[in-house]
C-alpha cells in the first residue's frame, strides 16, 4: 500500500499516525508540507530514519523539496517528480492521510 502525508511533522501528528498503521512492504510518499519530514538533522528526522529500516521505500516529491529550499535530505529517501508519483499510485492501492 501507498500512504501519502502532506503535513509538517513539526506541527502536526499526521505522520506519526500514519506510521502506526503501516505494514511492512508499505510505501510512504511525502508531499506538500509533508516533505519537511524528509529534512536531515532535525528534531523529527528519526521518524523517517526509523521507518527506512523496516520500509525502505520512502519518497519525497522533488517539486515540494525545491519549493522549500530543502537540500539536506535524509539518506535513503528517494526524490521523485509527479510522474513518479503517478507510477506509485498505479502500482499500489493508497490512503491519503488528510
Amino acid at each position, binding site marked *: 500500500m501507498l500512504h501519502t502525508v*502532506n503535513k509538517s511533522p513539526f506541527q502536526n501528528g499526521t505522520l506519526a499516525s500514519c506510521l502506526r498503521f503501516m505494514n511492512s512492504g508499505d510505501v510512504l510518499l511525502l508531499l*506538500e508540507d509533508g516533505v519537511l519530514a524528509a529534512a536531515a538533522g532535525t528534531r523529527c528526522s528519526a521518524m523517517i530514519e526509523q521507518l527506512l529500516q523496516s520500509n525502505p521505500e520512502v519518497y519525497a516529491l522533488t517539486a515540494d523539496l525545491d519549493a522549500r529550499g530543502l537540500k539536506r535530505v535524509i539518506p535513503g529517501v528517494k526524490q521523485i517528480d*509527479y*510522474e513518479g*508519483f*503517478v507510477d506509485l499510485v498505479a502500482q499500489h492501492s*493508497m490512503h491519503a492521510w*488528510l
Partner: protein
Amino acid sequence: MKFAVLVYEGPYNHEASDSAYNFIKAALKKGHEIRGIFFYHDGVYNVTKLMEPPQDDRHIANRWSELGALGIDIVACIAAAKRRGIVDDVLVPNVRISGLGQLTMMAIEADRMVTFGD
C-alpha cells in the same frame, strides 16, 4: 489505469489544488485515463469564473476548464457548492455541479482514487 481525483480545498489557499493539477497532468502524460475530478468541501471554490488572480500568477479555474475541454468529467458537489455560493452562473466552462452519487461512481469505477486536501 483509471484514476479519479478528489479535491477538498479551495484554490490558492492550500497547495491541494496545485498538487492535484500537477498529478493529473503527469497521469495524462503517462497515458492513464482520468475517470473524473470531484470537488468537495472548500474544493468547490476551484471552478468559479469570477476569480481574477494577479496576471503573473496561474489561473486555477481556467486550468480546470482546460482539462474539462479534453473530455474529463469535472464535478463540484451540489450540497457543498450551494452552502458556499458556487452556482451554475459562476462556473467556468466544461465543469458541472452534481450530487455525491457522482463521487460514489468514481470511487467504485476508478482503479484508484487520489485525494488532495488539507
